[in-house]
């Protein structure tokens, strides 16, 4: 909502208040000021000049040379091509080094060899419309029609020397989308009386009921409908003060009648519409729901298809307006209009909102109606419009008003208990202040209760009263206190703590945390070569996505990681080691929420990474986070990964994720020529496996013994099998088992490999004897032979 301080100043005395002060105080009392505009800011150094003499240009037929009085000691010489100049004319003159809207700068210069010390301006060059100023002329220089001295700043003449305040009005305060509403807030904020316009209509005889009849068929969606008739209408330009008021609020002047309806829209926040009665067949207005396939051409020239959810204004035969949204072309007032009907009505906000949305045309009127306007202001607004008609001499108001009123007053008296209010706010505000404030805000107050004005539909509870009081008292004046009462334990639960721990460990291992979108493109799964029948393809779909690329909730985080790795690769970052803890969203049933699972996702590419670097990170993570029960089994089926370099990650024997080298066909699609490694591990499974019962183990008292063991075994036997046998055979004296060599080649049969381990053995009971060690080693070798067919090398 934009309004000039000067208009507000007509209703409340704010003399001496600077725009900045005004803005600050209004903001602090609840009417937030978004900005202060000085509309004339773009115009600088433009004054009124009087043309003293016009002579022909010596070298150009189409130019003339003018001498002007611009209120300075010396006259100015300006060359122009305009045809509508004459001696004695007052014109706007852009002086040397002046500025015009659109960043135009004017300096002196020569035109065909003759000095020109400035420029005479058209209305367009001053940023005005043809109706914005009486002296505007389609064909050239604007004439200053006001009686002003040469040298007067043009901004003063045009009413551009105003301060336009732009308010951001919250949706609960539809009443403040009006000059009167804001003036009321201003009056309370500055503690000054409010001077509202005195509304009265003289009338010119006749009886409206002889001319027009109104029938409201849907009283739910049209709570109130009033009509007034004005005859002998003289459509013409509006007076300067009216034009300036509209301009100040960002509206252009059209003609006196339209301007009056717009003025009421601004002053009261009440939309109005004017019909030409000669187009209303049967001299009748019917308010009803539109019929199936009914159409109307609205004022903007667009054919609109209506449906029965929409409310329309009709005459005896056809729709003439979409109620509360826009009038129809078929009943529009024109320059030759003689008799008009002023519609001032109250329509249901929800209905208007949906209609405007369906038709794709949100107008000033619909924007107001959708906030649920006060049906009780309708009549006064209508009267005010008629008063303006009479004031402007724009027509004769026929006596009487048609007022079909089905609005109910549903307000209730609310308790004003100062103790309760103070206890709720934590303040010590006096009862007197509370009562005075409410009264200034137009509340009725008596017997410890109050009744809000009809336009304050947002007032229901004690908390609402408390807000009215405290916003006027000042949020900045209430004290600050700290929470008291029963203490609460606070803190994070195990999952949250583990999440922080995992992030810290992974960062410590040299990985960078990333954050990616939760929604992905359905094509991501194609990129990842995920089969058509995979469960991952059943995704939660956003019905109104920004675009296909963000249209489904991810069921895997691997795609997001690949995309991020690819972006880094495309940016020519030589390597990247990344991780994310983020969710996947697995659909359940249609009317239920999807299951959200946090995933630890790790991804890397670059010179120094391979499968085992990735695995090393996971193992180190487990080590540091005390997760002991992780295992890996080869997965040759997953099409996203290299069939020979992919493992399922098992926690406590249950599948909890996957890791490995990305399949070359997939990584190629992401633009990689080098290898890419990714792991996705379910966070909840991981967190559940964290050993929280950490206990100290006494440091060993007896020395350890190290033995190396190399076996020759079938190539296909995974080392995890060998390790399992070694661990079982050796028992608890095995302290550490380290693989140090896997060899294939010379001296080893083609289908075999040599696997070498360093075993560290130690007993808690005493120094191990040679015999004990030999027994253990023999048992290992025997079991490897029997169970795995391996032989000591």
């Amino acid at each position, binding site marked *: 909502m934009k309004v000039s301080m000067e208009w507000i100043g007509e209703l409340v005395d704010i003399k001496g208040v600077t725009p900045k002060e005004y803005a600050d105080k209004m*903001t602090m*009392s*609840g009417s*937030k000021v978004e900005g202060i505009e000085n509309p004339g800011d773009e115009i600088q150094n433009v004054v009124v000049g009087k043309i003293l003499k016009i002579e022909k240009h010596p070298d150009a037929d189409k130019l003339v040379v003018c001498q002007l009085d611009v209120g300075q000691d010396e006259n100015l010489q300006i060359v122009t091509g305009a045809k509508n100049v004459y001696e004695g004319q007052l014109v706007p003159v852009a002086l040397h080094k002046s500025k015009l809207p659109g960043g135009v700068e004017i300096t002196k210069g020569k035109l065909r060899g003759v000095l020109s010390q400035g420029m005479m301006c058209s209305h367009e060059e001053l940023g005005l419309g043809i109706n914005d100023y009486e002296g505007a002329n389609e064909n050239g220089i604007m004439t200053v029609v006001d009686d002003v001295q040469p040298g007067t700043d043009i901004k003063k003449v045009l009413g551009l020397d105003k301060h336009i305040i732009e308010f951001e009005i919250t*949706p*609960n*305060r539809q009443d403040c989308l009006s000059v009167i509403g804001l003036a009321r807030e201003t009056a309370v904020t500055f503690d000054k009386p409010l001077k509202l316009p005195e509304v009265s209509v003289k009338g010119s005889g006749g009886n409206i009921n002889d001319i027009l009849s109104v029938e409201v068929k849907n009283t739910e969606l049209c709570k109130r409908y009033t009509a007034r008739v004005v005859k002998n209408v003289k459509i013409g330009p509006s007076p300067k003060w009216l034009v300036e008021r509209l301009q100040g609020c960002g509206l252009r002047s059209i003609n006196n009648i339209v301007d009056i309806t717009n003025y009421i829209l601004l002053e009261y926040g009440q939309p109005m519409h004017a019909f030409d009665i000669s187009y209303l067949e049967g001299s009748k207005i019917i308010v009803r729901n539109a019929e199936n396939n009914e159409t109307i051409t609205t004022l903007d020239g667009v054919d609109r298809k209506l449906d029965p959810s929409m409310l329309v204004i009709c005459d005896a035969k056809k729709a003439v307006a979409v109620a509360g949204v826009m009038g129809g072309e078929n009943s529009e007032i024109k320059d030759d209009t003689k008799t008009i009907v002023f519609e001032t009505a109250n329509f249901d906000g*929800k209905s208007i*909102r*949906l209609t405007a949305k369906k038709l794709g045309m949100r107008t000033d009127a619909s924007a107001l109606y*959708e*906030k649920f306007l006060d049906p009780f202001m309708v009549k006064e607004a209508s009267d005010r419009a008629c008063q303006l008609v009479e004031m402007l001499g724009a027509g004769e108001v026929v006596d009487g008003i048609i007022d079909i009123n089905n609005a109910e007053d549903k307000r209730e008296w609310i308790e004003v208990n100062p103790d309760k209010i103070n206890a*709720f*706010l*934590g303040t010590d505000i006096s009862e007197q202040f509370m009562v005075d404030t409410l009264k200034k805000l137009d509340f009725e107050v008596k017997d410890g209760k109050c009744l809000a004005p009809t336009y304050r539909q947002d007032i229901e*509870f*004690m*908390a609402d009263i*408390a807000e009215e009081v*405290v916003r006027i008292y000042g*949020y900045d004046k*209430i004290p*600050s206190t*700290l*929470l*008291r009462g029963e*203490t*609460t334990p*606070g803190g*994070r639960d195990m999952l*949250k703590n583990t999440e*922080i721990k995992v992030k*810290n460990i*992974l*960062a410590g291992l*040299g990985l*960078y*945390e*990333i*954050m990616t*979108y*939760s*929604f992905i493109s359905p094509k991501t799964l194609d990129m990842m070569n995920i089969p058509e029948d995979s469960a991952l393809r059943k995704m*939660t779909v*956003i*019905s*109104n*996505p*920004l675009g296909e690329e*963000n249209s489904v909730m991810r069921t895997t985080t691997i795609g997001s990681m690949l995309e991020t790795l690819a972006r*880094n690769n495309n*940016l020519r970052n030589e390597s990247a080691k*990344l*991780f994310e803890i983020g*969710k996947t969203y697995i659909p359940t049933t*249609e*009317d239920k*929420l*999807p299951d*959200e699972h946090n995933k630890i996702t790790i991804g890397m590419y670059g010179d120094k990474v391979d499968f085992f670097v990735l695995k090393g990170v996971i193992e180190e993570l487990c080590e540091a986070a005390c997760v002991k029960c992780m295992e890996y089994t080869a997965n040759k089926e997953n099409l996203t990964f290299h069939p020979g370099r992919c493992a399922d990650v098992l926690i406590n024997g249950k599948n909890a994720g996957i890791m490995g080298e990305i399949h070359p066909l997939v990584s190629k699609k992401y633009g990689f020529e080098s290898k890419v490694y990714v792991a996705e591990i379910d966070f909840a499974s991981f967190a559940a496996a964290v050993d929280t019962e950490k206990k100290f183990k006494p440091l060993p008292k007896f020395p350890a013994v190290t033995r190396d063991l190399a076996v020759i075994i079938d190539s296909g036997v995974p080392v995890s099998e060998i390790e399992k046998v070694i661990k079982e055979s050796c028992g608890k004296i095995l302290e550490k088992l380290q693989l140090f060599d896997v060899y294939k080649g010379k001296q080893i049969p083609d289908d075999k490999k040599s696997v070498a381990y360093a075993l560290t053995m130690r007993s808690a009971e005493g120094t191990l004897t040679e015999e004990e060690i030999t027994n253990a080693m023999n048992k290992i070798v025997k079991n490897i032979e029997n169970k795995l067919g391996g032989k000591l090398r």
Partner: protein
Amino acid sequence: MREKLEQIGRMAREEIAALAQNKESRAEALEAVRVKFLGKKGEITSVLRGMGALSAEERPVIGQLANEVRSEVEKLIDKTKKEIENAELEYKLRAEEIDVTMPGKHSEAGRLHPITQVLNEMTDIFVGLGFQVVDGPEVEYDLYNFEKLNIPKNHPARDTQDTFYINENIVLRTQTSPVQVRVMEKTRPPIRIVSPGRVYRSDAVDATHSPLFHQMEGLVVDKGVTMTDLKGTLELFAKKLYGENARIKLRPHHFNFTEPSAEVDLCCFNCGGKGCRICKGEGWIEILGAGMVHPKVLKGCGIDPEVYSGFAFGMGIERVVMGRFSVNDLRLFYENDVRFLKQF
């Protein structure tokens, strides 16, 4: 024999002195001198062996002299040996000199995402005040995201242009506020929680808009919780996050689920309120929305507003992070360029 011993002493001194001229293998040469004079077959030993031929009177005299010479030579050798060792160590140390200004050898450390860093810091402040950290679903029922927060169907705040819908009843949460409702439905006061997390708005991506961003919700419900408590708590938070000189300002606003409601501005940390580029000349930067929990919301969660009251607040995290690190483009947070991530 006396002359012989004196001559031996002289020779030893000369030979040891001559060693000093050697540049290399001084340790070996010294050892050779020791063997020559003091060894089993050395000069002094052979003199001592020949003592049998001496008279009983001469024997102790010569014996003493021999011991004196031997002791003198031994001391001289020891002293020289130390000198040589010291010189050699010094030489070695000099040879091992390095350029200490050369760079260190790294095992690279990674980083937490800047949003995580700030989010953890913010959360910790409230944990210190006894707030519990709770989570809620990101895909949420319309009921929790809107209706129970007193935002009925067809309220302008829920136009499709703001909200991502899955279907009529399920949305991507547009705020962390539904967690308030979930907590109040399950828990009885006293309640003190914060809930950081992802939220979604249907905004096209640009330098200041992202369809996904982070918020942190706070909620306190108990007997006798007041608006001045809200103000005090937020002031404390601002001071902990931005330093002791941080100032905040509450101004009236409207949210459907709080009454009274406030928007909270932070006095610009860059210019101290004078107005600059960062605060767009305002001197203040809006950081969060807050208010007293609306009685309808309390009632809807089965908490009697006549007995209990509460306050709630919600703040955007990205804005804080952008301010903290002077990041000027929101998109950088979700592009995850390692050159960006390395800077935090």
